């Protein structure tokens, strides 16, 4: 499909919505085949489904399917869902296919091949357009044969935000563009007006990696083929030291236990200034009613290191567990939750940036609502997505064993940040533990 064609589809959003709705409504008149069904859906804590929840009654009205949606903190969600999938149980009907688990879950055969639904015209109208989803984010949701196991609701892209940019300006500085500048800015603003210079959540194996790569390091030797961990390089030690230092020297008290939400709240409450994370956690600083920093927040690209700029990008998708007994009802929900209409609405009402449908991204509305404090955040966001797609530096994240290795990284950063170990020692231990786990999982390691 050409983009012109897309745009023409998009221009007629209103009409499209009518078409999109009328197709299922034919079915609905045929008795809403899934009326009375209750499906269980789950995701980690995220703004997208916070917003979506408000629309659930419409979905229930339209299909007669009741949605029981639970959200948990990121690590908790992953652990519980992994456990559930491993039993091939039927407790969940719709799940979030977490980026770092996508390789593991798809590889183990724990998810349902969604092609059977998209290829069936009775189940999916052509207007739903599965090919409208961006190739980059979708690539993590496919297996080697090209079958699709999830449709992305989030194409995440890491950017930088300064909740109190006024403090940076007051110090005569601007948005940091390099790691060195970041340190300089943090030094200049830390503690001013009681605001900590930096904040982060505790998912170090996501937040830290751009710093690792920016300094020239990497997690594995050559993912996905060679998964020998490379955590003992001098670059890794340097990056770990740098990042741990950011956390303890410039972070608010208790930063090491922050969840995503808590880190966001620390910025919204004006207790902390700079954060480098996925844009979806940054936009609420401007949009959220409880934010106290709406007027002072500014955004920028992730700072670059001596070896380049590697802002993280990822995707999260909705999928159906292999053990679900209500797959068709589950598909109804997925179809609805990432339909053009719903995505457009979430963008319009909440300036939600992390979407994965090209037609919506290219719409003028997207650019318009994501202009925050005069800044074109949409452009920033797209730039990061392109960076990630170009060189494939995100491949390390979707290998099946990343969750185990990521855990070792988290622990190592914690040990450094809490001064239990020097960076070199901590990374050495992480490397040894990672190798042990990889071998337990039957992975070949270079010696």
């Amino acid at each position, binding site marked *: 499909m050409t983009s012109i064609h897309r745009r023409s589809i998009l221009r007629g959003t209103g009409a499209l919505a009518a078409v999109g709705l009328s197709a299922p409504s034919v079915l609905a008149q045929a008795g809403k085949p899934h009326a009375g069904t209750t499906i*269980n859906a789950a995701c980690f804590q995220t703004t997208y489904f916070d917003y979506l929840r408000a629309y659930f009654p419409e979905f229930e009205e339209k299909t007669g399917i009741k949605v029981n949606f639970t959200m*948990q903190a990121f690590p908790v969600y992953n652990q519980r869902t992994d456990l559930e999938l491993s039993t091939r149980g039927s*407790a969940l009907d719709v799940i979030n296919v977490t980026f770092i688990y996508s390789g593991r879950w798809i590889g183990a055969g724990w998810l349902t091949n969604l092609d059977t639904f998209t290829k069936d015209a009775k189940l999916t109208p052509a207007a739903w357009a599965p090919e409208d989803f961006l190739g980059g984010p979708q690539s993590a949701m496919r297996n080697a044969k090209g079958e699709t196991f999830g449709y992305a609701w989030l194409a995440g892209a890491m950017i930088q935000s300064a909740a109190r940019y006024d403090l940076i300006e007051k110090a005569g500085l601007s948005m940091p563009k390099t790691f060195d500048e970041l340190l300089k800015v943090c030094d200049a603003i830390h503690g001013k007006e009681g605001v900590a210079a930096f904040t982060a959540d505790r998912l170090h194996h996501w937040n830290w990696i751009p710093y690792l790569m920016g300094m020239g390091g990497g997690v594995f030797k050559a993912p996905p083929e060679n998964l020998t961990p490379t955590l003992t390089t001098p670059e890794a030690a340097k990056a770990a030291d740098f990042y741990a230092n950011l956390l303890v020297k410039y972070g608010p008290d208790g930063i090491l236990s922050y969840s995503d939400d808590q880190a966001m709240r620390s910025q919204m409450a004006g207790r902390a200034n700079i954060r480098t994370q996925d844009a979806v956690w940054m936009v609420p600083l401007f949009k959220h009613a409880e934010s106290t920093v709406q007027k002072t927040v500014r955004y920028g690209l992730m700072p670059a290191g001596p070896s380049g700029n590697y802002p993280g990008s990822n995707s999260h998708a909705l999928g159906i567990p292999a053990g679900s007994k209500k797959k068709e009802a589950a598909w109804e929900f997925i179809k609805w939750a990432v339909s053009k209409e719903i995505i457009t609405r979430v963008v319009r009402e909440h300036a939600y940036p992390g979407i994965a449908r090209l037609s919506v991204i290219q719409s003028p509305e997207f650019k318009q609502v994501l202009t925050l404090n005069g800044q074109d955040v949409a452009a920033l966001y797209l730039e990061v997505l392109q960076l990630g797609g170009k060189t494939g530096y995100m491949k390390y994240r979707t290998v099946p064993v990343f969750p185990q290795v990521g855990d070792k990284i988290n622990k190592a950063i914690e040990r450094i940040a809490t001064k239990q170990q020097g960076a070199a020692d901590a990374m050495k231990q992480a490397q040894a533990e990672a190798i042990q786990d990889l071998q337990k999982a039957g992975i070949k390691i270079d010696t």
Partner: protein
Amino acid sequence: MSTRTRTNRFLLQALAVTLAVLALAPFLWLLVMSFKTNAEIFRFPPRLFFEATLDNYAHLWTSEFRRSFSNSLIVATATTFLSLLVGVPAAYALSRWTAPGGNAITLWILASRMAPPIAFTIPYFLVYRHLELLDTLAGLVVIYLTFNLSLVIWMMRPFYDQLPRSLEEAAWIDGATMWQGFYRIILPLSGPGLAATAILCFLFAWNDFFFALILTRTEAMTAPVAVVNFMNYEGWEWGRIAAGGTMIMLPVLVFSFIVRKYLVHGLTGGALKG
């Protein structure tokens, strides 16, 4: 009593009261917090008099939390009933009769009560996958028997030890069968013991967190797991977290007060009588 001893006594009592207040402070803090708005929670120093709100409770009661609350209730009641049904006759028999290998049985019963929960969780988890008992109330009831059945046996046996044998022997002489002797004479006499044991069984099942964490997902989720999920999700809604905690602990406090005399007994397997 001399003045000195009286002063001493007064001082000791004052000390005891102070310590009690100190020991209870963390608990009271949570209780009070559940009636506060978020703004009030973040205020320091806290105000002694604040406008109490029931919003936290109202919010919980309209959410999914209510279902997990009733799950907890059903599971705890069912497992209590089953443990008593199976365990009470055994306790009676073990009190009246020296079973062959009695010591081994004793150790077995105590050990199954003391075993780390993960030792049962792994095999149950693996087997439940195939029996489709994961995320079901029945699955929880069964695994709660692992600790409650032992509890019934060791709680009840000392009660029967205290009842003289002549009671049922008299009934036998009057022509009652052994079963009737137990059922008509002994069982009614052990009423208080039964009540205490039932309450303890209920509490242990109600309090469980680990088994439910691993073996339930959505449908059979119990209240303790639900409140933790809630905490993971709404990390800053402390008022609601406190309200959830309070709702879980209230039945426990009431029941515990009733059986406080038997607590030692229940927790130590009759090693000591309270």
